[in-house]
């Protein structure tokens, strides 16, 4: 297969060139030759395609890709002895994903520019825990932070235990005076081994684990996991369940956006926004509790449907919630827009370049505030959003202010979506049994889902074995691609603006560390 630069391949061409894997849905997966793999990496490096995920298995590596025509597919490469060509050497967004695959599966990406361990801090008492044969632990070594040299530079070490009520992680700042010259993150502190626990777990237990990958996105993760299981087994949940799922997802988006808009302002010492947004967030959580029986709606979505129906009282609680936010929120937006001292902090702070957002396929408000017009609800899209009217706000400024505005607009869109869903919610059952037995005879089945959480697109890929248990499940949080961008966005800002920049990204530690 020869391709020239004038005629770049489509993802479908590469998948057709490989050995198709049966029972992989809804998109295709093919095991490809190294030459085809490299051709795909070339498309990534040239900026034509986007990397949706990269994950390992013993002696295998997989890559989920999005091409220019928004076609999605997975290519896999057999790597005997764990040796595989590094993607990260040509396409930096893959770097940390490859380091994680190396830590967990003992893969050895050849040419990987950064071979420091990432999730493995030398504390597990085991090396390569998910490899076919885990090995003895390597001696714990101190982490070598990247150097920055120059007159008068000093380092500031922060974490893993932070000053606020925040997740743990380590930030190493190198500063010249007040200006940040380099930020390097060290993550992995909350690595719980979720993918290890998933392996061999029954579907209902695995669903619970998926819903606890990142607490603020419990609905989105449960939804992504359920959709991947349903894709694998060829199940369609009842219409009412599909619509209730979207209702929960929009409530989760509202709660997070409202809370974070306030918290960003609070990091600029503008507490009144925080107080008022906090009230609105609490209202959303209380309405969710009244409607679905849990403030964060945890475990309310399960493969096959939802576990909690919406009654008349719950629906009217949500309606009055929407009315209240519609009444109060515009005043807060006006306050944000008209406070010069606040704008002074957020405008032109933490600038993320359009090119970087594109290269890293940054999802959610981080990408959309820097010109990346992508929303998984619209494309690839999933029910019921194809029947709902909503806009995807996009800005190109890429600063803290732009990320705030994207969230403001998304609050408005979610309010409209909630109303549309309530108006058209179909009647009927909310759950169907998932039976894995009927499909077991023809071998393992693989499913995949891309779901738009409040933070961006969450990817779940899984394989269900003949016994109906999860064989392998990979969960890719949007933060994998946001974290490195935060390092870029903070450069040249003052140290005191880091909390502001950090909160405007609001990356997940737990979702990243798994």
């Amino acid at each position: 297969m020869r391709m020239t630069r004038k005629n770049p391949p489509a993802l479908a061409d590469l998948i057709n060139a490989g050995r198709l894997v049966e029972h992989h849905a809804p998109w295709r997966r093919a095991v490809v030759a190294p030459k085809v793999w490299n051709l795909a990496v070339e498309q990534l490096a040239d900026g034509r395609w986007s990397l949706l995920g990269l994950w390992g298995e013993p002696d295998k590596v997989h890559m989920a890709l999005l091409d220019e025509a928004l076609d999605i597919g997975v290519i896999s490469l057999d790597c005997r002895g764990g040796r595989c060509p590094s993607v990260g050497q040509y396409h930096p967004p893959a770097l940390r994903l490859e380091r994680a695959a190396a830590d967990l599966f003992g893969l050895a990406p050849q040419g990987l520019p950064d071979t420091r361990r990432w999730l493995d801090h030398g504390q597990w008492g085991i090396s390569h825990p998910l490899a076919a044969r885990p090995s003895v632990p390597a001696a714990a070594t101190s982490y070598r932070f990247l150097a920055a040299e120059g007159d008068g530079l000093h380092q500031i070490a922060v974490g893993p235990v932070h000053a606020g009520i925040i997740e743990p992680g380590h930030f190493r700042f190198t500063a010249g005076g007040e200006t940040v010259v380099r930020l390097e993150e060290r993550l992995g502190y909350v690595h719980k081994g979720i993918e290890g626990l998933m392996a061999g777990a029954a579907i209902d237990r695995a669903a619970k684990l998926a819903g606890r990958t990142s607490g603020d996105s419990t609905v989105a993760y449960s939804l992504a996991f359920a959709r991947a299981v349903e894709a694998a087994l060829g199940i369609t949940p009842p219409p009412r369940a599909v619509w209730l799922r979207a209702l929960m997802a929009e409530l989760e988006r509202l709660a997070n956006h409202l809370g974070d808009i306030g918290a960003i302002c609070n990091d600029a010492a503008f507490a009144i926004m925080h107080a008022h947004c906090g009230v609105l967030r609490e209202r959303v959580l209380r309405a969710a509790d009244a409607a679905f029986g849990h403030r964060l709606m945890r475990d309310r979505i399960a493969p096959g449907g939802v576990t909690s129906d919406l009654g008349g009282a719950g629906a009217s609680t949500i309606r009055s919630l929407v009315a209240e936010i519609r009444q109060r929120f515009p005043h807060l937006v006006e306050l944000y827009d008209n406070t010069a001292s606040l704008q002074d902090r957020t405008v032109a702070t933490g600038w993320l370049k359009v090119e970087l957002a594109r290269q890293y396929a940054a999802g959610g408000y981080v990408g959309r505030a820097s010109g990346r017009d992508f929303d998984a609800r619209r494309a690839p899209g999933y029910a019921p959003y194809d029947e709902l009217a909503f806009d995807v706000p996009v800005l190109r400024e890429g600063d803290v202010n732009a990320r705030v505005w994207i969230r403001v607009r998304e609050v408005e869109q979610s309010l409209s979506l909630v109303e549309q869903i309530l108006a058209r919610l179909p009647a009927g059952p909310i759950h169907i049994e998932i039976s894995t037995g009927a499909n077991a005879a023809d071998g393992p089945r693989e499913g995949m889902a891309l779901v738009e959480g409040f933070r961006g697109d969450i990817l779940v890929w899984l394989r269900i074995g003949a016994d109906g248990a999860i064989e392998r499940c990979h969960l890719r949080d949007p933060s994998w691609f946001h974290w490195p961008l935060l390092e870029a966005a903070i450069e040249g800002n003052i140290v005191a603006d880091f909390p502001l920049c950090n909160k405007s990204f609001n990356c997940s530690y737990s979702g990243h560390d798994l």
Partner: protein
Amino acid sequence: MRKLLFESLIRPPLTERAPQVSDAAIDELTRALDGVARQRLGRSLSIRAVDAGSCNGCELEMHALNNAFYDIERFGFRFVASPRHADVLMVTGPVTKNMREALKRTWEATPNPKWVVALGGCAKDGGCFAGSYAVVGGVSDVVPVDLHIPGCPPPPIEILKGLIALLDGANGKVGAPKG
């Protein structure tokens, strides 16, 4: 902003507005909490949050304690930025192996007398993450725990209830603290 501030002046406080059962419970609970807190600690209890591996769900509900509905600072409960300022460590999550050392050091940095509250199901025994190669287990496997508050995550009202229980339990303990 003036309009918002003015409205805040003329509107009744949020804790007393909504006439629901749960709001009544909050009111009762907060009054009880006020009494006990004043008696034991002279209106001051400093809490240091430590995420030792949580999914972040418990942190969200801890944050909620600061909103206008619960407004935990009314009673002298404060979340502080350093363990050196803390009376209570509120620890969440199954303790991951990568966080074990940091949790230990945070505990050692907290002056006596000190209490440890393990918040959420994972903090009790590792929850659904127990048995993982990367997880130690519950908080008590690493530092002594005075109180467990169950829930996944515990709603803010349950955290408030837990703090009362802690203060009640702390009777007679102040003279001979752990650690």
